[in-house]
């Protein structure tokens, strides 16, 4: 409530300056199309021109670490906690979540549709040794995938040639999966916004284990004096505001909501 008032105040009092801020965000965030809606709104509301670098989670963390960006938006809790613990960011702020889904050939030879949990679905794929495309790029999605394999008692290092690490972003990986007619773990937003589906369809979703939390981490100004700490703060304030909540919760592709706002003021 107070934040809403503060923002309203800021809007009326602060002249709209074209201040810029560099934000490193993950490919899955950009591929969803949400950034195309958020950025103009941010520019309009708080006069902040967000320069978006779309990279994998690993690279985003590197950029934050070296101070080449002012803030990062990623989805890998373990890595984020490490980042904060190392002092590169003062804190992490949860903003929204979406979920991961299992994509695969419509025929579904592994019968993933019938699985009860995500773990079981993966086990079926591994047992049948069917083509599976992995991001393989140390991104949030990749880490989630590895965590799921671990929960399923498998080590991808031991997988045979059916497991293909492409080392690419979400869209590129989906392209590869489409071309190979393979299974792949993707975030729902990127899938809904993907234009080259081929024979692939959404086979499995809904397991809480597939929960995908996005958080915002401003780079620590004590580490890098040159970062735009104030702008980063202003952006954070906006991202947890009711206005952001409305936009995020209201963002749909083909009638489906993609993200759920869960920031706490």
């Amino acid at each position, binding site marked *: 409530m107070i934040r809403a008032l503060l923002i309203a105040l800021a809007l009326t009092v602060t002249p709209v300056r074209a201040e810029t801020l*560099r934000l490193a965000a993950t*490919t899955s965030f950009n*591929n969803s199309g949400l950034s195309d809606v958020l*950025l103009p709104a941010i520019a309009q509301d708080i006069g902040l021109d967000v*320069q*978006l*670098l*779309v*990279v994998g989670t690993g690279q985003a963390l590197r950029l934050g*670490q*070296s*101070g*080449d960006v002012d803030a990062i938006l990623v989805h890998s809790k373990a890595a984020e906690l490490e980042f904060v613990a190392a002092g590169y960011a003062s804190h992490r702020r949860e903003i929204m979540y979406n979920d991961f889904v299992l994509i695969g050939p419509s025929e579904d030879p592994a019968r993933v549709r019938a699985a009860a949990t995500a773990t079981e679905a993966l086990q079926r794929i591994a047992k049948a040794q069917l083509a599976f495309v992995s991001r393989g790029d140390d991104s949030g999605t990749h880490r989630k995938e590895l965590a799921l394999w671990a929960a399923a008692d498998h080590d991808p290092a031991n997988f045979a040639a059916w497991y293909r690490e492409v080392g*690419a*972003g*979400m*869209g*590129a990986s*989906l*392209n590869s999966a*489409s071309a190979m007619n393979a299974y792949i773990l993707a975030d729902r937003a990127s899938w809904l*916004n*993907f*234009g*080259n*589906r081929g024979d692939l369809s959404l086979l499995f979703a809904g397991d809480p284990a597939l929960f995908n939390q996005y958080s915002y981490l401003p780079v620590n100004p004590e580490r*890098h004096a*040159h970062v735009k700490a104030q702008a980063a703060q202003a952006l954070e304030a906006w991202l947890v505001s009711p206005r952001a909540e409305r936009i995020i919760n209201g963002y749909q592709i083909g009638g489906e909501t993609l993200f759920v706002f869960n920031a706490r003021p």
Partner: protein
Amino acid sequence: MSEIWAGMAEAFLLIWSLDADLIDITLRSLQVSLSALVIACALALPLGTWLAIRRFRHRRFVIATMNAFMGLPPVVVGLIVYLLLSRAGPFGVLGLLFTPAAMIIAQVIIITPLIASITHQAMRELWSDYHDLLISLNTTHGQRIATLIWDGRRTLMTAALAGFGRAIGEVGAIMIVGGNIDHVTRVLTTAIALETGKGDFALALGLGFVLIALSLCVNLAIHTLSRTEREGRW
């Protein structure tokens, strides 16, 4: 095949409607690559010519190295420039990372050896023709370089266009040092990479055709301006 037609249609639509984003990234592509070309030529043309006419101890080694640098993988150049310009790197304080300036720097590094190498080859031939005459006429070094560059300008233009072609089509290095930021460092090639990654092949192809058309236009313009095919010219 239908994708390719869709791509051509997309390209036509984009150009016809003078899509604002398209104009933005096209102008930026030209800005980055032409700037890189001008700087690279300013470095490479005198260097290549000078190497052709001067004899010094390690000349062969320098020439071999220059030729080898033509094969520098652009993405490696991008990575090195990134590490140099990063805040964690030696030139971080300049704040050049993720700006068009960084892209220009990377492209200059990539295309200068190419232009210098072609220049050197052309100037070497020309110098062996002119050698006796220019020495007999008491020319200074500067006069020799100027004469060679002027008389060899047709080949040098080819060298420059080769450099331009390399620059405008480059994507690896400028993706890394530019960051493909919308409205800031996004150019045709990085936009194509982005749209391909999103699976929007029609748009990616459309942009690709725009890029090809752009390259053709630049080449045609330069050839027309220099009247290469004018009757009586060699």
